[in-house]
């Protein structure tokens, strides 16, 4: 039952307390923050090329937000007491703010989506009958004002909300990095760079997810894929992955160069237990190859045909989704493979397929947001970029 130990571990340290679920959690909140950033690029920074994914990005962010806490609840020893964290928060703990930041962000995104979809909701309410009509009327809060000035108010509010949302999303996710980065007992976690690395890789994963979703949704809906949009997504993705990888490597190079005490455990960790998942997947497969692929899209723009660009973007995005997950894994699990005795290592850790915190549950949790997005799409059919066009047709 007990794992193979190399060297000497403190006897309580041989248990991996934070399992797969705790790697899932920053992954999901990262997607939340990353997707939101894309919508903010459009709404706040005026990157109009991203208009086709402006709605999709918000809805994706919300879909993942809905389930971001699920891995935590699965992991908690006492999920039924989880609300203690908001009712008796201990503010000296990095974790205590979680409930409040999460709630604030939740409200903000919901509000923003509601404003963006308000016109659709009202049109839907007018069009439908019976229960359906009541449902949409409720969602419209009984106000059917879609006059130009009302929509202008909406637009302005959305911009403000998106602007507030940027620091909030950064906070929501940066703080997850802080939870790890502020643990002085753990040499692999304890670095002020941690929140920043988390944040940038969150944006990487968010953009990657949107590339995938956009390409797949358009393909299935048989709608044209805007090359400008894919190109813009790839450009931003390229920028953020380069920054992310630089930060990730910088951290390790600093430790190695300083010959710090932490390096005593990190060096063997990287060359043994994490050799495959860190060097193999996170750095080579997940970073180097996508950087080259996206570099092709960005630098050789004029030479690419649309299908070729889409294919390259798709592959790069898939690899980057994986990169970010392995990064979470390497941080969370890697930090528990060595003992705080600084002299002992576990053989390795792999979660079971069917356990409570196992692979199957993790996959299920990862699928739930997509189901949410699909349901949303059913209720409010205008996820696609052509929404403006569709609305115009209806208005006539």
């Amino acid at each position, binding site marked *: 039952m007990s794992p193979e130990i190399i060297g000497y571990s403190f006897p309580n340290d041989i248990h991996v307390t934070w399992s797969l679920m705790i790697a899932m959690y920053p992954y999901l909140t990262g997607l939340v923050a990353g997707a939101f950033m894309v919508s903010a690029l459009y709404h706040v920074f005026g990157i109009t090329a991203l208009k086709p994914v402006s709605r999709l990005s918000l809805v994706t962010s919300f879909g993942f937000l809905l389930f971001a806490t699920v891995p935590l609840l699965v992991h908690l020893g006492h999920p039924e007491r989880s609300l203690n964290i908001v009712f008796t928060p201990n503010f000296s703990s990095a974790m205590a703010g979680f409930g409040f930041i999460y709630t604030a962000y939740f409200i903000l995104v919901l509000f923003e989506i509601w404003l963006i979809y308000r016109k659709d909701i009202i049109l839907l309410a007018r069009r439908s009958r019976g229960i359906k009509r009541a449902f949409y009327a409720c969602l419209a809060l009984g106000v059917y004002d879609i006059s130009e000035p009302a929509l202008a108010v909406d637009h302005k509010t959305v911009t403000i909300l998106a602007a507030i949302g940027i620091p909030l999303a950064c906070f929501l996710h940066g703080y997850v990095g802080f939870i790890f980065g502020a643990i002085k007992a753990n040499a692999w976690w304890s670095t002020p760079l941690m929140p920043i690395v988390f944040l940038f890789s969150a944006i990487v994963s968010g953009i990657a997810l949107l590339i995938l979703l956009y390409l797949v949704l358009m393909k299935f809906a048989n709608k044209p894929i805007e090359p400008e949009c894919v190109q813009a997504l790839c450009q931003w993705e390229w920028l953020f992955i380069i920054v992310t990888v630089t930060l990730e490597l910088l951290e390790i190079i600093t430790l190695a160069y300083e010959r710090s005490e932490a390096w005593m455990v990190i060096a063997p960790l990287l060359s043994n237990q994490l050799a495959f998942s860190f060097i193999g997947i996170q750095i080579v497969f997940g970073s180097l190859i996508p950087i080259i692929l996206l570099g092709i899209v960005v630098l050789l723009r004029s030479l690419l045909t649309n299908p070729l660009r889409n294919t390259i973007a798709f592959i790069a995005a898939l690899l980057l989704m994986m990169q970010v997950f392995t990064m979470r894994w390497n941080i969370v699990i890697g*930090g528990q493979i060595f003992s705080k005795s600084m002299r002992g290592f576990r053989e390795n850790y792999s979660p079971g397929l069917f356990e409570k915190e196992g692979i199957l549950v993790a996959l299920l949790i990862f699928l739930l947001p997509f189901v949410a997005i699909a349901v949303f799409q059913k209720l409010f059919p205008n996820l696609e970029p052509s929404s403006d066009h569709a609305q115009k047709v209806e208005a006539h």
Partner: protein
Amino acid sequence: MQNRETEMSRRSFLGKTGGLAVLVVAGGVTTVFADSKQSEQIKKNPQAYDWSQHDYVYLVDTDKCIGCGSCVRACQKENHVPPHRFRTWVERYVVSHDGHTHIDSPDGARNGFPPVVSDYNVAKAFFVPKLCNHCTHTPCVQVCPVGASYRTKDGLILVDEKRCIGCGYCVQACPYGSRFIHPELHVASKCTLCYHRITKGMLPACVQSCPVQARMLGDRKKNGDKVAEIIATSKVVRVLKPELLTEPNCYYKNLSKEVY
């Protein structure tokens, strides 16, 4: 002779509650906090425990420890510690002349230590009992999101089993590996210095079961406390991982430099 002396000082620590009185009145010993309202009650009931009158310190003399594991066994029984989890454990260090260090703690020394055959020239070898350091500036209380981990007025770190959500953050934050998630209760669990015993004037199970007085409990707020005196005056007393500035209240006498 020396043993006898320590024995005597223990007896005086136990005071009048010695013997079985404690068992008979188990639960009957009224525990009262030093509250303004309740200080009245303390006067009426001399047996009452006043936590503002204590500040516990723990001292381990690594030169004395024989590595028998009695403390680990006693702790497990006294506190219903689940298998393969430890509120206290004992480590063995076997150091060669060229600095090679072999460390082990088979099942936390619950069953003592088997002989090892070392293939090098042993320069020194010794045992080090470990337990929660009850740090003054403890990261575990700092990171508890719900206020389940806390520091009492008499200087101990406890976990409220009814409020702990089992997130495991404190387990990660403890630099000494003193905490674990209880596999059945699903809450963080750790050494309480046998709070249920020391508040009744008894010794923690580990201190009491030590046949060679390698473990000692002291009280800084008691006049003439021998253990507190040693900690204050000795030059060979130090704490574990001092660089983390957690200010442990568990001190080690004659600790070799290999230990951290």
